[in-house]
């Protein structure tokens, strides 16, 4: 319904008088997002330009090959190709081993009849989540030292030769994945345990009357109840298969295992911030961001095709 002009203006004035403070509040976080999230996006163009310290980003000259020079250089850089492989490999192993672990633990905790013991187990198992990767690396270095670390002392006493858990590429990958499980398995059960509380207890009672065993209950009631949560989290994990953690490989890696610990995020740090090759590192970063978004959208579409809710 069209209002006369003066009435419309009066309602606009009223609206502003009522809500101006909301805009004032919102202006601070919005400024934050523009300055620290959107303006950096304008700097992405240096991936296509030759970096110059004296010029503004907008004025820098286009790189050779129509600006694609640094992408070509990245893909002919062995370190980068290894970083892509390692990122993919470590994330894939995390997915295969680290993803099911909390589901299994949640099922176990759910079956545990001793309530106080259950709560105690949860408290202890959540704790490693709050330790930084630096601290975990400190713990691991002491625990796994080949000469006098706890694990190797025990191995030696049992008559085995010591294992260089953190200093040999193959063992390092194993340790990396294992420490990831150690840090997050307990914490990640929280989501599943919360989903379990939404399952109608009458289903279990009915199943018990029908004589269903423990495995049948898990198979036909608990797991279907967890399915939406599992699918949502699986999409997120699949979407992040080429995104890389920084703290974890930085903290756990060393020069002996560089061939497996070098991932995209550490490559960007080493080449860009330490090596000052800004254009190359920005090109690599852009490649990663774009691939991540594409993967996330693909995983989401896949989930929707299978009749799940998806993440957006």
């Amino acid at each position, binding site marked *: 319904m069209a209002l006369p002009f003066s009435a419309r203006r009066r309602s606009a004035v009223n609206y502003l008088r009522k809500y101006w403070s909301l805009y004032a509040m*919102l202006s601070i*976080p919005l400024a934050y997002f523009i300055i620290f999230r959107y303006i950096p*996006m304008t700097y*992405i163009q240096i991936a296509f330009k030759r970096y110059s310290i004296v010029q503004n980003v907008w004025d820098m000259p286009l790189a050779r090959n129509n600006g694609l020079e640094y992408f070509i250089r990245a893909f002919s850089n062995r370190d980068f190709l290894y970083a892509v492989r390692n990122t993919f490999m470590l994330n894939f192993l995390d997915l295969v081993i680290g993803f099911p672990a909390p589901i299994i633990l949640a099922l176990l905790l759910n079956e545990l009849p001793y309530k106080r013991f259950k709560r105690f187990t949860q408290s202890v198992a959540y704790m490693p989540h709050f330790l*930084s990767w630096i601290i975990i690396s400190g713990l691991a*270095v002491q625990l796994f030292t080949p000469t006098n670390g706890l694990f190797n002392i025990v191995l030696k006493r049992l008559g085995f030769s010591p294992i260089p858990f953190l200093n040999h590429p193959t063992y390092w990958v194993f340790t990396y994945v294992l420490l990831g499980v150690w840090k997050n398995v307990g914490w990640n059960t929280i989501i599943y345990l919360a989903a379990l509380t939404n399952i109608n207890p009458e289903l279990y009672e009915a199943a018990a009357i029908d004589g269903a065993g423990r495995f049948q209950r898990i198979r036909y009631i608990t797991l279907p109840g967890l399915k939406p949560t599992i699918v949502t989290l699986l999409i997120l994990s699949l979407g992040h298969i080429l995104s890389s953690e920084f703290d974890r490989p930085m903290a756990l890696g060393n020069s002996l295992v560089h061939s497996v610990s070098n991932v995209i995020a550490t490559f960007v740090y080493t080449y860009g*911030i330490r090596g000052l090759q800004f254009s190359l590192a920005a090109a690599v970063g852009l490649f990663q961001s774009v691939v991540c978004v594409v993967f996330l959208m693909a995983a989401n579409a896949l989930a929707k095709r299978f009749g799940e809710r998806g993440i957006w």
Partner: protein
Amino acid sequence: MVKSKGTKAADLVIAFICVLLIIACLLPMLNIAARSLSSTEAIIRGEVLLWPKGWNLTAYRLVLSDSRYTWSLGWTAILTVICTFVSMTMTTLCAYPLIYDKLKGRRLFNTLILFTMYFNAGTIPHYLLYKDLGLLNNPLVLIIPNSLSVFYMIIMRTFFYSIPDSLRESAEIDGASPVRILFSIYLPLSKPVIATLSLFYAVGRWNGFSDALMYMNDRRWHPIQLLLYNILKSITSIEVATQEGFASAPGLSDTLQSATVVFATVPILLVYPWLQKYFISGATLGALKD
């Protein structure tokens, strides 16, 4: 319900697995505590497992008398308090206006904010921006650029949504301004979520090191995690050198390193048991978001 023998045995097996899990979680802590309290000789001889051998407190005395550690611990504590306060203010300022469905432009703001969750400009563009803004090597770089987490903002907004609209509407009819409503209705009712998110921000800052590693060269402003990282790297490089056949270099002893790790861990372990329920409610709120 009467339980069969088989069920009971299975329960015990599950309980046993849980005991193993508890041991696995606590073992590294006990080991490092034991090493930090042992003599260097006992460690080198490979005698220290979970109980200190050759009891000594030298490492702790050294850490406490080294001004680098004490300063860094103090600075990280101050930084954590400041960051938590700034972050909570920003989060509230962002979440609260967005619950007003009459707010014009709300959809646009939501889209603008959510987009940043999925697409990130990357490390280098951020680095260059901080350089242009003069934030490199400025302590503010550890406070401002990551002061607002979209994910935590959504958690807070979800909590605000759970407060009935009728409360707000009746206060509006009584002539209360949005700011007044925030302070007298929303914030007092949101203590659990405020506690939870403050903790998440605080733990994030206490544990964070990558921003300092990338944007802060000035050693005075290095938070404890970065100091620890540098110590660890110097130790592993000695170890690597030893393994590659060079003579073992005299470095920071294992006891000293263990003591530093203990110092960085203890604050977290101290707050954890008391605040656990908040952590958990936060994780669940995050899971239920839409």
